[in-house]
């Protein structure tokens, strides 16, 4: 098992190196070159060209390209991600500021959508061909067909603007700190995001459950005279679970990437919102670092998921 994990990590490293190199290349080619963004722009605007030159020299900015890349990479490992062009805020600070909001929202959505999706998908598979199944299938189709921002806007219009039950956006009102002040803000965005994500899980778990129910061991279990619920839950569901875990793994990147548009709709102060602001303002250092960070998150998620599937399904390890 340990060997398997280590082997997986070694596959990831070249990937990360290549992508970080590409990101660095992008930073070099876009205006406001990467390494000068290491200097706080506020400071940079006040100093003379000679001082700047000296500063560049001291930072090693006049070194050859590859050397600069290595310095930049070293900086990242020390937590120095450079500065945003807008206001010269250190990117690490932005991350610390915005990431919790995104993770909070996405985690809630991922949790609910996975649970609801698995349950609905299983019901759908067990009652295959029934009106319930047909209804859920069409519901699932709708979930992947309506633009998520449109759904978000409609929900916002109904529950926040017209009925006034819940706040239309934001995360925290200044001065309010208890959980009961915070909870209402997350309800609408989390609900929209969960419902959008549920459709995919539902369709997936339905087909994997259907697949599991046709296997031989189900027939064996039934011929042993086991009660139907035991067959379905203990035998069928367990086997159907493996592909669902894989699916959750594929969805972990959604923790970062899935909420970008919904964050914008509900003015949720997360990393996705920040990303869009950065893209709009051509704030390249910030755009690149968020992209790099999201790749890192995706690769880590894929590592976790590989390990999890190997734990559930021993056949994977042996290949």
């Amino acid at each position, binding site marked *: 098992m340990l060997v398997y994990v280590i082997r997986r990590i070694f596959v990831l490293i070249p*990937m990360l190196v290549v992508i970080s190199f590409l990101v660095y290349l992008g930073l070099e080619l876009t205006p406001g070159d990467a390494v000068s963004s290491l200097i706080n722009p506020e400071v940079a605007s006040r100093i003379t060209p000679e001082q700047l030159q000296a500063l560049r020299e001291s930072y090693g900015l006049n070194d050859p390209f590859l050397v600069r890349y290595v310095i930049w990479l070293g900086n990242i490992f020390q937590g120095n991600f450079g500065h945003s062009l807008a206001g010269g805020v250190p990117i690490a600070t932005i991350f610390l500021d915005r990431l919790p909001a995104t993770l909070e929202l996405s985690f809630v959505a991922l949790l609910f959508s996975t649970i609801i999706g698995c349950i609905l998908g299983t019901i759908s598979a067990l009652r*295959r061909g029934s009106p319930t199944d047909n209804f859920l299938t069409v519901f699932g189709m709708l979930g992947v067909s309506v*633009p998520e921002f449109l759904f978000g806007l409609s929900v916002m219009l109904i529950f926040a603007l017209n009925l006034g039950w819940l706040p239309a956006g934001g995360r925290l009102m200044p001065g309010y700190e208890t959980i009961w002040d915070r909870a209402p803000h997350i309800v609408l965005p989390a609900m929209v995001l969960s419902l959008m994500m549920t459709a995919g899980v539902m369709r997936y778990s339905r087909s994997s459950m259907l697949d599991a129910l046709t296997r031989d061991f189900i027939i064996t279990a039934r011929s042993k005279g086991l009660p139907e619920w035991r067959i379905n839950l203990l035998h069928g569901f367990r086997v159907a679970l493996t592909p669902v875990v894989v699916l959750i793994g594929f969805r972990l*990147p959604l923790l*970062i990437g899935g909420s970008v548009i919904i964050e914008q709709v509900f003015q949720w102060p997360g990393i996705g919102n920040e990303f869009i602001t950065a*893209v709009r303002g051509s704030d390249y250092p910030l755009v690149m670092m968020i*992209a790099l960070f999201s790749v890192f998150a995706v690769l880590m998620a894929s590592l976790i998921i590989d390990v999890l599937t190997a734990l559930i399904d021993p056949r994977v390890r042996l290949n």
Partner: protein
Amino acid sequence: MSRRSLDRKFDRILELEEAQKLSPSRRNRALAKLLNNRLAVLGIILFSIILFSAIFAPLLTDANPLKIDLRNASKAPSAEHWFGTDKTGRDVFARVLYGGRVSILVGLGSGLISAVIGIIIGAYTGFKGGWIDVLALRVSELFMSFPQIILVLLLVSIIGQSLLNLMIIFILTGWGGMYRMARAQMLSLREEEYVQALQSFGLSTASICYKHILPNALGPVMVNITLSTAAFILAEAGLSYLGLGVPLNIPTWGNILNTAQDLRVLQNYWWMWLPVGTVISVFVLSVNFIGDGLRDATDPSQQG
């Protein structure tokens, strides 16, 4: 069923056959199956209605989707303006029709082109194997390790906003899925006996790949095209809503929805966003219905 009634049934079939009324069905079996699927047929109908009304937009409306008429700004739907007018007095119905042209072009166009690129690379490298296969696989992994929306926005920020750029970005981010599928199909099909027979006849790799193996993988390919088309249309709408997709002076479904960012528009002028939102949803839904029908019709392992 009793023996006798069965006999009678066969007799009837025999009669029909002798009268040559039962010529072997010419229709493609998959097509027949597709047309038996009620949702898929509904999908095809809705898809055609929206597609053709976008293509023949000038026949359906006299209004110019770009003509600004401030005196008639923000008017509710009427006999003259079916979907009302937007904040600068442009006819929303005309904008939805003409916008459909661009949105469908972006969605379907990027879907088809990325499929062609993915297939060409996937089929060839999958069949050939060796270093070229490894290279293509690594490159596709590179693209796929970004969350889709992050990669799209990243590319938008680097190469800038235009209709063509958006399509290029969609193709760049979309070819990977089809590539993987084509490659997987190749890996399993290249061991088939008929392929070995073709090789022993000395046919060229390209000819075996594209002419003899590819048609066997047509079902999954078409399913994949519908999926990516749906995804691209949604992506265009999302990006344009954010103001980062197609430049705002070109009407697209997403650009029409851009006004809904203003909460006053959302609350007071429903005709500026609800009809076009419905059209997008119905169109994507119809594409998904078709895709699902195709999957059921072409893939025997997915019956259900």
